[in-house]
């Protein structure tokens, strides 16, 4: 992702962005990029273990696992965003999220840390073509020289193109 682009968008952050943002973010890596999600949406972090495949599901839905008695679907974000190599070893990390009243897990390349972002460190999303629809990006965060892509994980996970939640009542 071109670095200059984030600098182009150095407009004062609008209220709509700052007002509903939580301050703490869990950052994780997908390929070369760093992402951040609201820490309050994260339930736990665990390793990648035996998974049960679901027939005819999209490729990025790896299947379901047993999380202490509840069946949790696992989504590989690397496949979904086409970033990095989707291979699984003992370092592969699953972030268990609690969004939209559901529990689900996302596979990422690695979890970095939890950082606090002030409103001055958050920039609005510039319009750019991306594999991720900018609709799901809350903004960009800057920490020193690092750039974080802040994802509205709840919106993303409940979107129709993830196909995780049945959209119609029928």
């Amino acid at each position: 992702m071109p670095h200059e682009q984030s600098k182009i968008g150095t407009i004062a952050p609008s209220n709509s962005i700052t007002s509903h943002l939580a301050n703490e973010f869990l950052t994780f890596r997908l390929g070369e990029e760093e992402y951040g999600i609201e820490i309050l949406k994260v339930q736990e972090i665990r390793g990648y273990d035996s998974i049960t495949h679901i027939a005819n599901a999209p490729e990025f839905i790896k299947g379901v696992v047993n999380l202490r008695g509840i069946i949790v679907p696992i989504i590989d974000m690397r496949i979904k965003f086409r970033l990095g190599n989707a291979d699984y070893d003992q370092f592969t990390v699953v972030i268990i999220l609690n969004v939209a009243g559901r529990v689900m897990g996302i596979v990422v390349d690695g979890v970095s840390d939890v950082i606090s972002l002030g409103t001055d460190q958050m920039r609005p999303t510039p319009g750019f073509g991306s594999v991720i629809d900018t609709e799901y990006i809350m903004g960009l965060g800057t920490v020193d020289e690092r750039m974080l892509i802040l994802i509205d994980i709840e919106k993303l996970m409940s979107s129709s193109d993830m196909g995780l939640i049945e959209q119609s009542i029928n």
Partner: protein
Amino acid sequence: MSTDLEQFYEIFFEESSELLADMETCLLRLDVNSPDLEDLNAIFRAAHSIKGGAGTFGFTDMTEMTHMLETLLDKLRKGELEVRSEMVDAFLRAGDIIKGQLAGHRGEGQADPAAAAAVCEELKRLSDETQVSAKENLVSNAKSELMPIEQEVGEIAEMATSSPAEVASGLTYCIEFSSAGINSAAMENLFANLQQLGRLEKVVSTDEKEFCKFKLTTSKSEEDIWETLAFVVDPAKLKIELDLPVRSEINASEAQTLISNVTATASSVGEAESAAANISSEPGYGFFPGAPAAPKNLDGSDLTENSLQPKSIDNGKNDDQAVSNKSSKKASAAAPASEASSIRVSIEKVDQMINLVGELVITQAMLAQTASQFDPVVFEKLHSGMNQLERNTRDLQESVMSIRMMPISFVFSRYPRVVRDLAAKLNKRVELKTVGENTELDKGLIEKIADPLTHLVRNSLDHGIEIPEKRVAAGKSAQGTITLRAFHQGGSIIIEVSDDGAGLNRGKILAKAKERGLPVHDGMTDQEVWLLIFEAGFSTAETVTDVSGRGVGMDVVKRNIQGMGGRIDIESALGVGTRISIRLPLTLAILDGLSVAVGDQMFIVPLNYIVESLQPTAADIKTVSGHGRVVQVRGEYLPVIALHEIFNLHPNVTAVHEGILVILEAEGYKAALFVDDLIGQHQVVIKSLESNYRRVQGVSGATIMGDGKVALILDTAALVMASQQEAV
């Protein structure tokens, strides 16, 4: 303040709903001809409790309604008014109104103030009628008035087995106590109180004020009188006796002779008794059991009186006690489980517990597997510990599972009302019998079974039971019977709705089916014909009523039952009756399944769909028009469903004859499921895929296996139906 109260709203709502349900049960049980005072009291108590709660929370509409109920009930209770069926109707309607008001306060729907006002008005009218109707009753029903008297004497003859509470018309009690140490003001007050209870008649008023004896005629029970007196009089010095003219020694024939002059006898015997008591009690010793021995200078007759007196007290006490025990036993038998102690726990907590126990079972299985690798001689203690753990976990799981189980009476209890209302509407005479109300099934199923069952009951009443004239003409009793029966069979619960009505008419159903263009022929078995009534839009009713006849409903019933994993069967004989039986799994949470393997994946096939499993020979497999495969099993050609093709898996075997075929049957169709291998039979806990994910085609749920892995449960019915559609 209001916020403080709000947290109790939910409790009040729940309690009120329960009380209303109790009230309805009592009302329906109430026999108009001989109302049980205990039932009336129970209804009164329920109304009163609701009124109290409603008053606390400021639900004035409910308070008003319950107040009207109370007023009328109180009059009934005191015997000022005879129970009539229109009153029961009014009570039931009032109950409905209160239910509506309750829902209104709960924020679910709107109460209808106009209807409430109408019912209020009716209740008021009924209670105001008191005097008039009582008089009317006295005059016009003079004949029937004789009946209770006769009955009374009959009961007396039966060793005074009738409980005081049962005779609403009132009984005469003989009350004796020593008034020593009680000041006159208290005495006056006491007599005023007693006079409120009923008709007071002083027998002895001694000037010394040492001893009082009088008779009280009241509809209140002995306990009430006792309570009134116990405030003032030392209970040890108090004696209350049922002033019955006859005791156990009297026999029926003697009682018969007494009928004509029962009142005269009563008073004369009472007088005689009191006179006798008077003689004996003049010294005042007879009433102090703990008093020193009678003075020696008393003559012989006094001695015998003294020695007899305590005995007779004891007898009377025992009799009364026996009677009251009997009546309370009767009451408890009539209202089973209403007093059962229970606690309210939210269903989430229970589910969470079930989940945790499920986890525990899995952990235990894992430990057991690990422990089995150790040398049983060296690690003997570990192994015995593991055995104990296994036993305890299994017991724990069973008892936790049983929390969700509820008796089916929760569903059955609503039908007396449904039948009563509907029968009245249709001018039919129907009796509802329920058998096996204590059969337990999962709470989730209880909730879901109610609607289909209501439909079946209504259907039986409307289409099954004929009008009384027709029944009599057919040589049956005018009153029809609908029987609800529930029982366990194997791992299922079976609920039957049967009626002794007209039965299904095969010709009529077939004709109707042909008219609607359904694929039918005359050679169909009865069973197949009966199942036609579950087709959407199918109805043989000549006229459409607001009860049924539109052909909507039976198909919904079938769909609901199938949705619960159950099935439905009909047996019917023309002119004799119909029996519809519903077979349901005991619980939604547990399923007996066969685990099968395809490639590296494991699936669970519900056991109740499996007919058999077999390994076919290559010759048994045939192809139809190049692709669709069928297998010949005992002369039948069944479509082969290859699981790996449907689920895009990589199987270990691709040739059908190298794998295993599981023959499935669902909704009357059969198909053969082709899998790599059979693994074993398990009882699995069903977990929802949809709670965190979405519905998956061909999968009805998921479960967690002993090794902690997730296995998907196949939606067998859908797979079989899909194979049929392909084949057609």
